[in-house]
């Protein structure tokens, strides 16, 4: 479990994280979303004790990170996959980190196998592609078999096969009862992996809810109706408290009722219906709507 309690971080005049409070629970893949510069990476660094918070605190399994002895057994993190010494081999890189937490050679070999890096284990890292470094970073995070995992933009640089692999890995890790926090600025990616979302913008919490709930809460949810007797049907619907707007091409966009109710009503009055489509906002749309303000605010602020 990861807890942020009124967490804040200022860098001089810039407030990167502004009073964030949230809890990341085990058993789920939690997406940590926000536009670029929203404070996702800073928040993760605060959780890992790499940066000192200006106010508030972050707890991992109920403890401050700095006070955890051999923390790799409890928390695994991938912050920046390119942060490796180019002159060392993959094996030495992992082994040196493993040693610091008393983890054995067998585990290093096992993870190189799991991440598909076995064949390049003894190659120096300056020859590694970004995708290979991401795999190495994931291997590093998993070294101590931790119950809490954090990944910052892990999909960057991975090929399609790598992306499929990593999505499944996150789901498997969560299914094993682990806490999995994955950051991204791409909602489309999180829509496929995360079942819970924490959305931030300009360092502040915008939403913290199950992914499905975020879609349901979205205002863009309606039923598209096409009928040769559209005007007549619109009057009937309005009479039953549904809200009807007419689209530019003459189709009706109906809210405050269901597709089934519209179909039944049309049938009862002998009105032909050519199309009846419930429209859900995608997670992407819900996200843009939520973060739109925080992005707009930034642009507006730059104006005199």
């Amino acid at each position, binding site marked *: 479990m990861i807890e942020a309690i009124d967490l804040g971080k200022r860098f001089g005049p810039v407030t990167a994280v502004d009073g964030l409070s949230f809890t990341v629970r085990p058993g789920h893949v939690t997406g940590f979303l926000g536009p670029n510069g929203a404070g996702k990476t800073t928040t993760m660094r605060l959780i890992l004790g790499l940066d*000192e918070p200006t106010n508030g605190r972050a707890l991992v399994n109920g403890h401050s990170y*700095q006070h955890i002895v051999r923390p*790799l057994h409890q928390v695994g993190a991938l912050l920046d996959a390119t942060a490796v*010494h180019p002159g060392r081999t993959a094996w030495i890189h992992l082994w*040196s980190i493993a040693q610091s937490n008393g983890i054995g050679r067998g585990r290093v070999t096992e993870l190189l196998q799991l991440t598909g890096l076995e064949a390049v284990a003894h190659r120096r890292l300056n020859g590694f592609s970004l995708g290979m470094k991401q795999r190495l970073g994931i291997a590093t995070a998993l070294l101590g078999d931790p119950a809490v995992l954090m990944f910052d933009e892990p999909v960057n640089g991975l090929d399609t096969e790598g992306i499929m692999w990593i999505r499944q890995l996150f789901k498997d890790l969560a299914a094993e009862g682990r806490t999995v926090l994955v950051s991204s600025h791409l909602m489309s990616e999180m829509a496929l992996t995360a079942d819970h979302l924490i959305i931030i913008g300009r360092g502040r919490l915008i939403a913290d809810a199950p992914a499905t709930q975020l879609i349901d809460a979205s205002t863009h949810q309606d039923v598209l109706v096409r009928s040769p007797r559209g005007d007549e049907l619109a009057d009937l619907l309005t009479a039953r408290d549904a809200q009807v707007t007419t689209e530019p091409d003459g189709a009706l966009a109906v809210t405050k009722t269901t597709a089934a109710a519209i179909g039944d009503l049309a049938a009862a009055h002998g009105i032909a219906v050519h199309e009846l489509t419930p429209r859900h906002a995608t997670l992407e749309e819900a996200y843009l709507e939520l973060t739109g303000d925080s992005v707009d605010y930034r642009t507006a602020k730059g104006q005199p």
Partner: protein
Amino acid sequence: MTVIASEWTKLRAVRSTYWTLAIAVGTAIGFSIVVAYAFASPPSHGKPPDALLPGFASLEYAVLTAGALGALTFTSEYSTGLIRTTFAAVPRRRMVLAAKAIAVAAATFTIGELTAFVSFFADQAILNGHHRGVSLSQPGVPGAVLADGLLLFVCAMLGVGLGALIRHTAGAVVAVAGVIYLPAAFGALPPPWNDRVSRFTLFSAAEQVTAHHPSLTLFAPAISLVVLLAWPAATLAAAAVTITRRDA
């Protein structure tokens, strides 16, 4: 112990470590032989140069490479961002500082002493041909040679401390060079101020502890040894204070 093992693995596994140490050893032994030959046939007037000076003088370049080796243990991690992985694995940052210092100390102390004794025997063999050599059985000689061997370690520790403080390779190496070489300028002060100031510098302290006939106007070798060790100790102490206070 586990953290020391980790840092030892890191140090051992990069080619630059071997390069740096090979350059240190090669230049030190090579220069000392050249200097010994030069001393073997000095001008006939004046007193003959200190028989242990070739061993000390030849380290002038080697100490800088040792300092760079020490500095790189931190600066290479700060420049790549690896330091965040290191601190995430070991949140007690002073343990990381201590482990890096110990790993580098082990390497530079061993290599340093080896170099000092090889240089000594080579130099004295050359000087003995002209009846100017000294032997290990003479008073003061073993201590001076051991002290010679200590210099790579001292400068490497200076490098570790400055690397942790400055975080950038170029800046840290320039700082190491500054601490080692800049105080030579104090020698230009009018006497007795030149020695009164110089005796506190790392360079003069090193000169005193490694000489067969130490200068009488500087600190005695025992006090000079304290001065010599105080420089890296102070640097590492400053690093220990700041390392927990700054964001990684």
